[in-house]
């Protein structure tokens, strides 16, 4: 991708991916290896490898514009710190990343010119990647080249074929959106409603998932199947809990109670330590991190639920999911105390009522047994 970014004119190499690879002298065998790995990356079954090969061969390189708003650059870091293999660079070689203000060599007017040129040239066909949330509170909270995030997003979205929202900030507002949300941060889908949006949440998202989504678009020229909150089902189809290798401990009722007890050392379930695995949908349990080396739960830390909306406001990372988020015992004690007073008052009312009944009671005699 560096090759592309070094080109300051903003144009992209033309031709199909097959032609690009051929011109690079990539052998068919290498290409097959690339396809196999891509299939694995896209979480597609291996039987689809030949189909992927055929599709990739004829794929055209799309222009990609990457916008970064209120974010920490963690998403970009995640992507660029992914193992710099020739395989993944092939994926990036097969797109034309025309604008990414963190990565591109161009700056200032030239950079913006590149963006505008790419948008114009590929109007209706380019992919828009967004990381970071958009502040609605005051346009001055976050600007690029004097343009507010909101303006840049709406303008860039007009000609986009599709938008990929990368990271929890772009997908659901993320940490800027967390209570009390001082900037009025919102997600991409809160602003753009007339374009297909793929949400790739995570704080940050797994790099392979980002490339996987790109590969899917590249391979099939279409968006992958999405779940009810816009996430590709291939990666977000199952909860962490369902795919967690520690799940059998949950089922057996074996839990780590603290971070340094026997259960923690034996690798038991982290539910009691606040693991959000049961309510979090992501691919960490299978894809893992750092090139498949490990992932948070394997390292002994509960899942934070970072790929879910509002994960920052979920009542505390170390509070188990089944626990109330607020201090209920205090509530209960106050309620009981208040109710005791109320109960005493009602009790007095009841006794008063009974006393009144006793007072108006006149001794019953045999003359009172029949109605007149």
């Amino acid at each position, binding site marked *: 991708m560096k090759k592309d970014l070094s080109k300051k004119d903003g144009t992209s190499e033309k031709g199909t991916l097959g032609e690009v690879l051929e011109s690079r002298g*990539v052998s068919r*065998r290498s290409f097959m290896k690339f396809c*196999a*790995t891509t299939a694995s990356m896209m*979480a597609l079954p291996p039987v689809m*490898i030949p189909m992927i090969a055929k599709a990739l061969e004829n794929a055209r390189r799309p222009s990609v514009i990457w916008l970064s708003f209120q974010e920490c650059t963690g998403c970009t870091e995640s992507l660029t710190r992914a193992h710099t293999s020739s395989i993944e660079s092939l994926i990036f070689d097969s797109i034309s990343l025309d604008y990414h203000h963190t990565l591109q060599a161009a700056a200032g007017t030239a950079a913006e010119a590149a963006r505008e040129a790419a948008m114009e040239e590929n109007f209706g066909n380019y992919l828009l990647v967004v990381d970071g949330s958009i502040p609605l509170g005051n346009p001055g909270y976050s600007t690029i080249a004097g343009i507010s995030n909101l303006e840049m997003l709406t303008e860039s979205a007009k000609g986009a074929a599709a938008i990929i929202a990368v990271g929890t900030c772009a997908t659901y507002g993320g940490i800027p959106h967390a209570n009390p949300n001082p900037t009025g941060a919102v997600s991409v889908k809160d602003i753009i409603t007339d374009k297909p949006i793929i949400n790739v949440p995570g704080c940050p998202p797994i790099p392979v998932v980002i490339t996987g989504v790109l590969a899917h678009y590249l391979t099939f020229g279409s968006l992958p199947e999405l779940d009810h909150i816009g996430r590709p089902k291939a990666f977000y189809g199952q909860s962490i809990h369902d795919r967690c*290798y520690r799940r059998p401990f949950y089922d057996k009722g074996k839990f780590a109670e603290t971070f340094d007890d026997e259960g923690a050392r034996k690798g038991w379930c982290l539910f009691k330590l606040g693991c959000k695995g049961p309510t979090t949908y992501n691919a960490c*349990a299978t894809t893992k991190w750092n*090139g*498949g080396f490990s992932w948070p739960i394997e390292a002994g830390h509960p899942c934070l639920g970072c790929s879910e909306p509002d994960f920052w406001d979920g009542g505390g990372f170390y509070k188990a999911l089944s626990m109330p988020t607020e201090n209920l015992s205090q509530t209960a004690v106050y309620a009981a105390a208040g109710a005791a007073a109320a109960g005493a008052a009602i009790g007095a009312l009841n006794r008063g009522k009974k006393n009144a009944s006793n007072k108006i009671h006149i001794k019953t005699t045999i003359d009172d047994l029949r109605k007149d």
Partner: protein
Amino acid sequence: MNTSPFNIHTGSELTWNVQPLLFEVRHALEELLDSGETSIIDLRSIPLAPGEEETILKTLGQGEVHARLSALGPSEIYETRYAGVWLITHYNEEQAIVSRFIEITKIPDILKSQQEDMSSALAELTQALESQELGIQDT
């Protein structure tokens, strides 16, 4: 079994994926024998506990054939102790594993010479012969 650099133990309890996977391999081998149908299992699609992959590889063992590719980084391909069951590991140029498959087939396709490569090989060879660039004359 403890492959983690952290002090996290992975006892024998963490092997529940091993058996089902081996059963799947056996079933695929049966299919191969009966109908000639080949299968591939993507080891990346299974949520393996630390140490499980090693157990699977250890169980499958190594057989007679062992090949090494140099294509976009190295790849290691060998037939396991069970004929027809192959293990394919793709590495990138930094020697990190990028994907790993168990393939149940007579010979993995990727080992075979590819049609397109043979075509360009033929062209290359022809060109080399024509331009006398084979360098055999000056021995």
